[in-house]
């Protein structure tokens, strides 16, 4: 087994950075061996805001039904990657989901194509009740409301499905979302994204501002949803250890470039990688 090498390109190098592939066993399940390894395919993605260029050419793929973690320090471009995928940030290059180009679409169009983005800071609608929030998530499903009863019954069934994943939300279904705790709000945000069975779920820092216990519960639910519904998930996370626990593959971003890609299990086990890229001291990495 070869020791992974760092893939940092020299400053000024314009060529495609050759990202080291960490070889080894696949992640937690065999999902990486899905029939569609290029379900989400990002190639040569450059993105930014105005003149500030954040992403400097990203290439990676996510297989259908896979959980992919994007890790890296602050300002590496993790959030921007997600924003480019959901149409909230413009960019060059190509991002295809199941063969359809996503770049250059508005967020609303991306949503129509099956992308569900749970933004950092959750973005729940605080003056709406929990159930209303979830129904907004099903906004697109009810688009042709005159299609009738069957469609509305389907939404009700979806509500039940979400309450099944997040029993706490059922207890609070009539409460204003603003009155929920941070963890419950994050659950609501994820539930709201899941209700229309997205093709691609994007999670941006789901652990932000939450107690460790709540975060763990949340990640377990994401893992369960991924396993039960085969939802493809891209999760951006500061807490590398947690993310690697549920991910099949992981990519490490630094200064807008991928510096490392590989099966999550390998990255988790490899003390050197953890220490160099993820800020996890070698002695702490086994603690979970």
């Amino acid at each position, binding site marked *: 087994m070869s020791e992974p090498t760092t893939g940092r390109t020299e400053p000024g190098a314009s060529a495609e950075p050759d990202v080291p592939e960490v070889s080894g066993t696949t992640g937690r399940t065999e999902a990486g061996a899905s029939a569609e390894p290029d379900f989400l395919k990002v190639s040569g993605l450059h993105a930014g805001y105005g003149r500030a260029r954040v992403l400097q050419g990203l290439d990676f793929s996510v297989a259908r039904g896979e959980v992919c973690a994007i890790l890296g320090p602050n300002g590496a471009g993790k959030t921007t990657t997600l924003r480019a995928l959901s149409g909230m940030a413009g960019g060059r290059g190509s991002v295809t989901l199941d063969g359809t180009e996503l770049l250059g679409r508005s*967020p*609303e169009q991306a949503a129509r194509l099956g992308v569900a983005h749970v933004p950092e800071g959750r973005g729940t609608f605080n003056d709406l009740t929990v159930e209303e929030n979830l129904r907004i998530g099903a*906004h697109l499903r009810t688009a042709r409301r005159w299609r009738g009863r069957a469609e509305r019954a389907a939404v009700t069934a979806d509500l039940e499905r979400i309450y099944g994943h997040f029993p706490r939300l059922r207890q609070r279904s009539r409460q204003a979302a603003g009155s929920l705790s941070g963890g419950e709000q994050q659950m609501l945000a994820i539930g709201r994204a899941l209700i229309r069975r997205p093709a691609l779920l994007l999670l941006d820092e789901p652990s932000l501002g939450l107690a460790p216990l709540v975060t*763990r519960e949340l990640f377990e639910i994401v893992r369960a949803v991924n396993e039960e519904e085969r939802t493809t998930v891209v999760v951006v996370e500061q807490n590398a250890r947690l993310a690697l626990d549920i991910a099949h593959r992981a990519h490490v971003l630094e200064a807008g470039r991928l510096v490392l890609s590989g099966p999550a299990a390998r990255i988790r086990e490899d003390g050197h990688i953890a220490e160099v890229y993820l800020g996890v001291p070698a002695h702490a990495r086994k603690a979970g």
Partner: protein
Amino acid sequence: MSTIAVTLGTDRARRLRAALTVLLAAAVAVGAPFYFAPFQVFQLTMVLLYAVALAGLNLLVGFGGQISLGHGAFFAAGAYTSAVMLDRYDTGHLATLPVAAAGCFLLGLALGVPALRLRGLYLALVTLSLAVFLPPLLKRLEPVTGGSMGLIVDKPQPPAWSGLAEDQWTYFVVLAVTAVALLLARNLLRSRVGRALRAVRDDESAAEVMGVRLSLHKTLAFAWSAMFAGVAGCLYTWVIGFVSPDSFSFVLSVTLLAGLVVGGLASLYGPLLGAAFVTYVPSVSQDLSEAAPGVVFGLLIIAVMFVAPTGLAGLPGRVPVAVARRLSDVAARRPSGVSAVLHRTPPAASAPGPESPSRPGTRASEPLTPADPETVGAPPRTEKE
């Protein structure tokens, strides 16, 4: 709305209560014109029609999170549509209503487009310019609008079978339209469109990633809102029987917005309270002195905003909360609650045990016994899983 559901308990109890409220309100509304003098009936009619305009503004400002200082212009457009149709084409009164509504809906749709790019103060300014520029325009279009002289039109006449006086008949016509309009506004808000609208208000980008089409819903909010204002304007023509440019100065727009804020933004019955406010306050204060209305109106707005920042409609919800908070404040002033009182050492035997370090809110006369750790505070939360 959700808090009401929680405090009233079950769905059935809630529905029963709502049905009773509606019945009672309907009985009062129908009985009122037989009880009050004609001028008072006229005032009630004005309250109702202003409520329609405020309900429309509420869709935009309260639930849509946008702002308009130009709703007087939509009001005027509806009023003039009705007046011109009655004056020049002699259509019946009822025929003017759908035309005014549809016309203002389209006008609102057109003016909703700038609202896509502007927000806050900028949007307020653009809509204000609309309100400022309309009266001179109406004066200019003299052949159609009658210029500064305005137009005098017939009021709806009570049919012989009803046996009602003119003011009573007008009241009932306006009541019917208002009831339908308010019901429509309520259902609109509970529909998919209304949910999307409120979602956009709470967090635009989050709504967008849910697949809500921002441009559509923001423009539609303007259009619906303008439609309600236009209907109110149309009713105004029926009730007053006279329109002139000076009736629709930009002060009207400001009054509408003030009425809505005083009544309660994003509340279903706030518009009714706000309408009562803008109708009665000027007329009551007129009795005090000639110069009083403006002063009283202004002072009352300040007073209401001070006492009830969420408007009159929010007052019933706030009072119990405020009382509860006051009570819990009193309780909190005894820092450790009941248990501290129970464990309090009598003053005579206060010598043993070091005085606990003074915490904010601890009364010196109530020394805590050190053997009572759970009263001092919750144990520190552990970060360990």
